[in-house]
């Protein structure tokens, strides 16, 4: 294998592996920008993966599967929204429960589904013409699927909404200072519900991509900690969709490199790397002062009650 092929496959695989990470990160950025920390990403992803897989199996249409995955992820996220926004519960506890609930439910219902073949999957496409560009062509325009491109297009869109529209200002003000937003007549609870829901939809989509497009199969716990990577990437991205994209693909590339280094390094150690990365990022930023310096939404994780300073 020549070095050129090696680089092309590595980067092309990174793009494919980075897509679910990016989807999840974009969703979590929106949730956290509105002030809701959702540690349930892993749970929402696996629910999305499971429902997308079964829907595709039954209907034979992978797009229907992806759609159902996204909806299930969104609906599932409302459990967290209800607990943390309406009931004002501790967001860490509620998010963790969501993850455990998702892993448990999908594991239970998914028992008979392991190893079943999918009748159809989301096809890989090659954009003729563009794929002829040396180096970039085979990385970006050969053998990727539509979701990969949709995800990339989401980045400027979500960035624009967050920083250049009234909706974005509303979301950010709710995450920075809910009391201010409330005193100007903004419905803090509604904004937070919507943002958590967006996060759920994107996490569900991400899961669906995994089970229907990336590796068309169902295995229990197949998200394998990606939800936690998403949490770390959100912080790593300074809550900005554009940095989120950089982070997701960078991480995917590192992951893939590690995968290729199995010849030299013990695979167990390499498998632990992503988690070590997530833990490191979380330790690094969970110090309150550091979070403030990094520009975390000031009201992140804090339930809002009118009239309490």
């Amino acid at each position, binding site marked *: 294998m020549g070095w050129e092929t090696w680089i092309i496959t590595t980067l092309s695989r990174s793009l494919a592996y980075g897509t679910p990470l990016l989807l999840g990160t974009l969703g979590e950025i929106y949730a956290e920008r509105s002030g809701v920390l959702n540690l349930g990403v892993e749970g929402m992803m696996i629910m999305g993966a499971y429902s997308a897989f079964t829907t595709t199996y039954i209907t034979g249409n992978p797009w229907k599967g992806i759609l159902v995955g996204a909806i299930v992820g969104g609906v599932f996220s409302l459990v967290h929204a209800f607990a943390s926004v309406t009931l004002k519960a501790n967001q860490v506890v509620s998010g963790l429960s969501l993850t455990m609930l998702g892993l448990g439910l999908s594991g239970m219902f998914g028992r008979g589904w392991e190893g079943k073949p999918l009748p159809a999957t989301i096809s890989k496409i090659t954009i003729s013409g563009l794929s002829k560009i040396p180096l970039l062509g085979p990385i970006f325009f050969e053998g990727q699927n539509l979701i990969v491109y949709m995800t990339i297009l989401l980045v400027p869109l979500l960035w624009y909404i967050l920083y250049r*529209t009234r909706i974005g200002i509303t979301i950010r003000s709710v995450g*920075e200072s809910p009391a*201010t937003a409330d005193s100007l007549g903004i419905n803090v609870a509604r904004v937070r519900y919507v943002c958590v829901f967006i996060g759920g939809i994107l996490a569900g989509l991400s899961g669906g991509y995994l089970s229907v497009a990336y590796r068309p199969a169902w295995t229990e716990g197949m998200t394998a900690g990606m939800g936690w990577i998403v949490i770390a990437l959100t912080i790593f991205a300074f809550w900005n969709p554009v940095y989120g994209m950089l982070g997701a693909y960078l991480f995917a590339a590192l992951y893939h490199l590690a995968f290729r280094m199995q010849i030299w390094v013990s695979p167990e150690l390499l498998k632990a790397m992503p988690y070590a990365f997530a833990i490191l990022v979380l330790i690094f930023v969970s110090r309150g002062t550091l979070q403030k310096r990094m520009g975390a939404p000031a009201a992140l994780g804090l339930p809002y009650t009118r009239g309490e300073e």
Partner: protein
Amino acid sequence: MDNSKGYAIELHGIVKRFPGVVANDGIDLKVRRGEIHCLLGENGAGKTTLMRVLYGLYRPEEGEIILNGQSVHMTSPRAALNHHIGMVHQHFRLVPTLSVEENIILGLDEGTGPLMNFRKTREKISAIADEYGLPVDLQAKIWQLAVGQQQRVEILKALYREVDILIMDEPTSVLTPQEVDQLFTTLRTLVDDGLTIIFITHKLDEVMKVSDRVTVLRQGKHVATLSTAETDKPTLAKLMVGREVVFRLKKSPIKRREKFLEVNDLYALNDRGLLALRGVSFELFGGEILGVAGVSGNGQHELAEVLTGLRKSAKGRVFLRKKEITNCSTREINDLKVAHIPAERIRMGIVPSLSICENLILKKYRHSPFSHGEFLDNKEIEENTRRAILDYKIVAPSYEIPVKLLSGGNIQKVVLARELSEDPILIIAVHPTYGLDIGATEQVRQILLAQRERGAATLLISEDLEEIMTLSDRIMVLFNGEVMGILDAEGANIEEIGLMMAGTRYRGEEL
């Protein structure tokens, strides 16, 4: 007398209860159209609660709100804004990371669709700013602005929404004396233009200076409504406190002793990682009180934290009686007889759910006579509490109740008793009387003066200029983390201090 048509607002029998307190106990308030109406009362009298009811933040249990003769239900701030009522809260409602114009249009449907049309809004904001003399940089982020400018943004925000009634909650507490005068001029212009303003305050001077009429509240009840021209400060003070008030603070001439504290070129970062102290140097002698004046957020907070070991300094040295204590731990500094009366007494001064007894020994439970080995000596601890309650006139139903159930004044006295019982050589007191009623304030001040008499060195950080002027021997002014100058409190000019608080260096001789 005016008929009801002359009233912009009528509140009838407003009752608002919180667990354990009746914050508003059937309050009536009538505000005439086009007047500045002061709402006067001590902390906890129910002023803010009443205005939050009017602004739709609280739902009252009983009572009626009548606007321009019409009974209305104020269900949310949005409803209040729809009725053209605006409120400038004591703690500003601004999003620090957003720009001025973004803050002003937040929550409004300006522009087309989800996109914003800043050109049109900018014109309107500039027009308002020019008309009322409220200049501000529209593109600046809120966190970059000084507090006085932030308040301007708050007022602009309300005017942009075309309010008829503007509620200002203690608007002067964060301003320099000059800024206060400016604010009063602005408010006059607004009233001349037909606005009605409700002005919450506990300062008598402000009532006399700015208002047309004044309503006094005490312990959640309406006491009186008077025309300002027909009343005076002693009358208002008596109505506010409920008894004769004599300001009888006795301060003996200074007996300066040797140098206790020396601070050399001190630098420190704030929580956001920005420089909060830039080369602060000063000396503090036994038997004197050094007041630290400044608009809040100019490094006072960080200075207190560095001196008590709660925050590491970035550069510079601190000496206590010639012994270096730079970046020592809190316990090490404690053991050198440094007392700390923190700004947030509930969060940092006490353990709210522990008893008075336990709170009183927090600094010394590890030593005899309060403990022997692993065991506490309850008899000694109770005796200690008995003494403290007697010495500091703490009013408590029992020794064992959680300290959080005491009133603010009594909580502060518990803190003082704990911190001062060991005869400290250095006292760092931050806003020691903030939020206390007049009686408790007086007591706390007397206690601090007694410590001065005993020979302790006191660093008094306060936003209450009057407090600094009455207690201090010298006054140091901080601005943007720098010392603007240190001057003698005797004969100090409040105008001069105001200028220094706004960033002018002291021109007189340094002390």
